[in-house]
């Protein structure tokens, strides 16, 4: 057995059924050995970035580890964006890279890059396997590290001669998953005490709470506390529940942001208080005692001041808090929240919001919705309704344009029985559109691509409009965009297009009914913005609730922004 075969055998022993990758010189022994392991399916992407985002989509949809493979040098560096993305969104991921033979390492050999050095800050851990005897053990350990605790990406770099070396030892099997620490009863007691005295409590659930969805739902209902789900936490609490307030932060709902600003107790579960969620930190939840349930101790107190740190598993913590629950009777708080919720604006005018709403309204509970990054992402997050966790896949922390489409392929391959819809912008789609070939190659039939085409890098344009006096610098794509329908057809993917509200429903029907994966381009007006919006550097309570009237000049926020920046510096 060679090292390369030991690698595949180890992956197979770990139940890894699908890997995404792209071959090259320094990983050829692994691709050669692949032919002996038909139990593992390899999906050939058209770019390593496509491969790793597909692996992320797989992982985000299933909660299981995603695996991707690349060669040395340029292949490995093409994984960097996906690794950083997985790091910020806590995605369990194993990246395997080939490297030049050991005797060439450090000589600037052909296609050599110090990928472990490069990825040091953006992986949970990484390895160079210098001895074939260590290979299966390292792979098993890498998988364990990627999945344990707060998940994250792990990279294993294997020199070519190690892949070829003879291996006679055992092939590794999975480690038992380490149990998460249970929260301390004292911490739970303190949290309970705070909740009991609360007049304006609110729960905020993040990406780390997705696997505790049932427990958090029970908790919120037992105490009768409203729930906010962050961009990463959408689906952790059913949107149909009257207690749901939407998403917080920069493009959060009025109800969520006002509730945070007014709350006296904020129970945060599985989240890291990203700046897009908090707005200006010293204006975040200014009146609230914060209870923070979090597995990763380093996140507790990193950004916001925490009154009661509850370190431990969200499932266990939620159960413990539910056991001691006492329904809170807070009619005034409920009335206030109902008033805020009534301020939700449904887009009725033709535009990006209308288009996104028309698409996401068609989602069935099992359908997976992915998005790329930009205005359409925020609109989808605002307008889509999720009853279950792991049905919403997007790049939260890193904001990676080009993420959505390959991630939807990965999610669609993980769950061939469900429809995997991706909403992308005309800008982001063009960053990874070559993966249309992957759809064709594997005859994937359940991926539905929706492009919201406003001919702009819309979110950048919105910021230029609001904060740079409409100097639209380098954001116009209109003259150079391809004919997306023809483009799709070039890859044998059926294309549909709608340009107004009248033809849209029919086109959505045809697009979704198409037996193949299909692309729908929705051409929308150029200059629509996403609102509500909290300007960067402002506090959540300083949100702009509705789009300022078009005829008016953009509000001059420069003084306020400078002050906010000064405040942030001093904070």
């Amino acid at each position: 057995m060679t090292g390369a075969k030991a690698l595949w055998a180890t992956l197979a022993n770990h139940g890894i059924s699908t890997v995404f990758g792209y071959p090259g010189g320094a990983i050829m022994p692994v691709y050669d050995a692949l032919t002996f392991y038909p139990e593992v399916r390899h999906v050939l992407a058209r770019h390593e970035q496509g491969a790793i985002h597909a692996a992320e989509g797989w992982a985000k949809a299933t909660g299981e580890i995603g695996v991707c493979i690349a060669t040395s040098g340029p292949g490995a560096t093409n994984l960097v964006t996906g690794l950083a993305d997985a790091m910020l969104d806590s995605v369990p991921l194993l990246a395997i890279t080939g490297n030049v033979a050991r005797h060439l390492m450090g000589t600037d050999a052909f296609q050599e890059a110090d990928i472990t050095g490069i990825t040091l800050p953006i992986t949970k851990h990484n390895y160079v396997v210098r001895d074939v005897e260590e290979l299966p053990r390292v792979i098993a350990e890498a998988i364990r590290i990627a999945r344990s605790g707060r998940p994250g990406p792990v990279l294993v770099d294997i020199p070519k001669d190690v892949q070829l070396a003879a291996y006679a030892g055992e092939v590794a099997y999975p480690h038992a998953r380490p149990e998460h620490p249970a929260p301390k009863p004292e911490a739970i007691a303190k949290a309970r005490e705070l909740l009991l005295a609360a007049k304006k409590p609110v729960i905020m659930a993040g990406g780390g709470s997705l696997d505790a969805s049932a427990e958090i739902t029970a908790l919120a209902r037992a105490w009768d506390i409203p729930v906010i789900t962050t961009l990463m936490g959408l689906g952790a609490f059913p949107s149909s529940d009257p207690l749901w307030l939407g998403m917080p932060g920069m493009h959060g709902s009025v109800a969520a942001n006002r509730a945070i600003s007014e709350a006296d107790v904020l129970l945060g579960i599985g989240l890291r208080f990203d700046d897009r969620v908090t707005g200006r930190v010293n204006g975040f939840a200014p009146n609230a005692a914060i209870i923070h349930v979090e597995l990763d101790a380093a996140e507790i107190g990193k950004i916001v001041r925490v009154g009661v740190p509850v370190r431990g598993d969200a499932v266990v913590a939620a159960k413990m808090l539910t056991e001691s629950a006492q329904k809170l009777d807070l009619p005034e708080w409920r009335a206030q929240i109902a008033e805020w919720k009534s301020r939700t604006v449904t887009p009725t005018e033709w535009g990006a919001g209308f288009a996104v709403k028309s698409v996401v309204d068609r989602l069935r509970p099992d359908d997976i919705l992915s998005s790329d990054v930009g205005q359409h992402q925020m609109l989808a997050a605002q307008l889509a309704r999720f009853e279950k966790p792991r049905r919403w896949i997007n790049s939260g922390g890193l904001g990676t344009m080009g993420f959505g489409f390959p991630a939807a392929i990965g999610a669609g391959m993980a769950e061939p029985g469900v429809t995997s819809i991706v909403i992308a912008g005309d800008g982001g789609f063009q960053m990874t559109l070559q993966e249309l070939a992957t759809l064709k190659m594997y005859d994937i039939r359940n991926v539905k691509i929706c492009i919201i085409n406003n001919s702009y890098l819309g979110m950048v344009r919105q910021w230029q409009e609001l904060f740079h006096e409409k100097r639209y610098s380098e954001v116009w794509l209109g003259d150079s965009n391809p004919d997306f329908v023809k483009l799709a057809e070039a890859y044998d993917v059926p294309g549909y297009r709608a340009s107004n509200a009248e033809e849209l429903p029919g086109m959505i029907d045809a697009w979704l009914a198409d037996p193949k994966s299909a692309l729908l381009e929705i051409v929308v007006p150029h200059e629509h913005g996403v609102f509500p919006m909290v300007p960067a550097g402002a506090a959540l309570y300083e949100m702009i609730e509705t789009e300022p009237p078009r005829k008016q000049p953009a509000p001059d926020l420069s003084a306020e922004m400078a002050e906010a920046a000064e405040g942030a510096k001093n904070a």
Partner: protein
Amino acid sequence: MSDYTMTEQPKDHLVSALVRDEPRVLTRITALFGRRGYNIRSLSVGATEHPGLSRMTFVVTGDRGVVEQAMRQLEKLHDVVRIIDHSLEKFVDRELVLVKVAISPDSRVEVRQIAEDFRSRIVDVGRHALTFEVTGDEGKITAFIEQMRPFGILETMRTGRIALTRGSNADIPSHVYHDGETETLRPAVESVEPREERARDVPNLF
């Protein structure tokens, strides 16, 4: 302890880390410090009594919140087996410095006398310079250098601070762990096998 945002004058904090003795561990740790913007004032690394484990002692400047955050970030690294915050325990610390002092026929005796007062050793004798070795805590070393400065210091090299938790005063309860056995007096590490098995709760959350 949970009020991490309190404003407090930045201070030096002495922290030790037991780490796996593997390539790139030092890079990993210093890169983490660099990226998160924590300032390391001094760093010393050496082997331990356990094969496969090294010990690093560093001085981080910042308020309590910054130091706790730095330690927690460090604790997440797979290569880090244990973090010891010496400010929570009674400890001994030392630094070693080599100081090359210019001498003249007039000053030679006086320089030697001062060195003797500091219990410093002469490690090199030249016609125009003497090189001294001084160990001690930071204050002693600084005092020695200040005493020698008027004669003309040609070169100095200081190691970083190194520290160990005291074993002798175990009967004096640590102020952090109340009257319990102190964490760092237990055998440091049994082996260098999977870290999660030994994963501890983060101390001092309450």
